């Protein structure tokens, strides 16, 4: 029995359905034929694939086999049967004692399966354009770190880190500000209860960030295909950036609003 690959069987079925549809569209006389074709389908299915082997080849191999075995059956009598379809040919072969060196139907060669190149050579690692890390990457890293070092060094020569007067627990400066990266939270403190502003909102923020890859199920990384994710994240960034900027530059004594260009900066790094 020839095993028909699943995808080929499906394809054949689809083709048959399409042909039936076409016949149905063809006109009134075809309408009568359509159910008949449908009825034939299950019976034709197994033989349909086998009969893809050209009839004359089937006939030739069959007659050769008959000669070899010295069978009494007349080749001439077998010929129309073989021409009738592969289904008949298999039936004849099944009746005969199973030969050892030949396949079903007495064919010495048979079609096992049709395999497309893509499915047997499923190459997952597509060739990637690569370059040597040395010098291509190390050189870039070296230059980047040199530039950064230069920047930090020169900036540090000209700008001193703040050192205010000795800490005094009895003298609260006005305003008292957190480090700049927490000024967004301090800004939230003016709007919410401290538990919400100081714990719940930042906690949720971190939690959402951690969960981001598990929430975003879209496998695509092209910006045009992930507009929602990008706009959401941009809003997230802007939310904090705006709060930090307001907290840093627009809050003065008593943490009240000030305009930095009139009342000056109340900000230490």
């Amino acid at each position: 029995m020839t095993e028909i690959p699943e995808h080929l069987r499906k394809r054949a079925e689809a083709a048959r359905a399409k042909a039936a549809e076409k016949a149905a569209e063809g006109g009134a006389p075809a309408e009568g034929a359509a159910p008949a074709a449908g009825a034939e389908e299950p019976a034709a299915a197994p033989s349909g694939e086998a009969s893809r082997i050209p009839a004359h080849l089937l006939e030739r191999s069959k007659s050769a086999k008959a000669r070899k075995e010295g069978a009494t059956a007349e080749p001439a009598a077998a010929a129309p049967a073989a021409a009738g379809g592969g289904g008949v040919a298999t039936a004849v072969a099944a009746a005969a004692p199973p030969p050892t060196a030949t396949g079903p139907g007495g064919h010495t060669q048979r079609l096992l399966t049709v395999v497309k190149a893509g499915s047997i050579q499923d190459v997952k690692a597509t060739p990637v354009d690569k370059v040597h890390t040395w010098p291509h990457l190390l050189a870039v890293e070296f230059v980047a770190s040199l530039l950064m070092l230069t920047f930090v060094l020169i900036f540090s020569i000209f700008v001193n880190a703040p050192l205010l007067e000795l800490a005094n627990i009895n003298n609260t400066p006005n305003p008292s500000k957190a480090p700049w990266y927490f000024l967004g939270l301090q800004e939230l403190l003016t709007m919410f209860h401290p538990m919400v502003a100081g714990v719940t909102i930042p906690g949720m923020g971190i939690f959402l960030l951690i969960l981001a890859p598990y929430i975003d199920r879209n496998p695509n990384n092209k910006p045009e295909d992930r507009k929602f994710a990008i706009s959401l994240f941009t809003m997230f960034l802007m939310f904090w950036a705006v709060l930090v900027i307001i907290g840093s530059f627009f809050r003065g004594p008593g943490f009240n609003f000030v305009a930095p260009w009139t009342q000056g900066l109340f900000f230490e790094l």
Partner: protein
Amino acid sequence: MERPGGKKTPGQRVSEIVDKTQGSQAWNSIFRPGSVFRKGYTDSPRNRSYVIMNSVLYHLHPVKVKRHAVKVSYTLCLGGLSFFLFILLTITGIFLMFFYRPTAAQAWNDIYTLQTSVTFGLLVRNMHRWAAHLMVLSVFLHMARVFYHGAYKPPREFNWVIGVILLTLTLLLSFTGYLLPWDQLALWAVTVGTNMMGYTPVFGDQVRFVLLGGKEIGTDTLLRWYVLHVLFVPFVTVIFLAIHFWRVRKDGGISGPL
């Protein structure tokens, strides 16, 4: 070129010494094959691979990387620069540790003396301070870059999680260091911060007590934050950094191209 009288030119003598040194056993035991300091280093694919494979530092990298991965416009070097700033902070931080005692009575004076009487003291403290702020910024920007490239998508989800942990560790590192100068800025910034954490539901008071080492900010807080800043948090950070870098390679290098 032989000079009359069989004397060698100074140039010949120098190159002879260089040859002899580079050919010596000691030299070759120090520099592994592929080192540019080895005798007869030539630019060949084999030597390019050896440079990476035979260096304890460089072999964080694979021998080859995707061509698009070396484009500065893709990564903006943000992750690498964050790591570089971490190293710079470690070096400058070790320098500062020589001149600093974490007690309320001495801390501020030590910083003041460092700035006024120690050679390069002011410069190194400035560098430490500005590099710290820059690191917070670059880690933050690195996160934004990774998000906008969709680089957190499979198979890199877990490395994103490690990255978020590293972001919080960076903030912790910066915040614990903020208290150490023991000036008005430090004291009140930390007061604001720890008061906020005191509002943690259920065990807020306990959290605050653990953070401050008491009911109020004092010399115990300073010691506690000092140990956190110079030892504990960097230690944890290095572990997570190692996992982060290792996962970059295991997940098939950096993401992209878009």
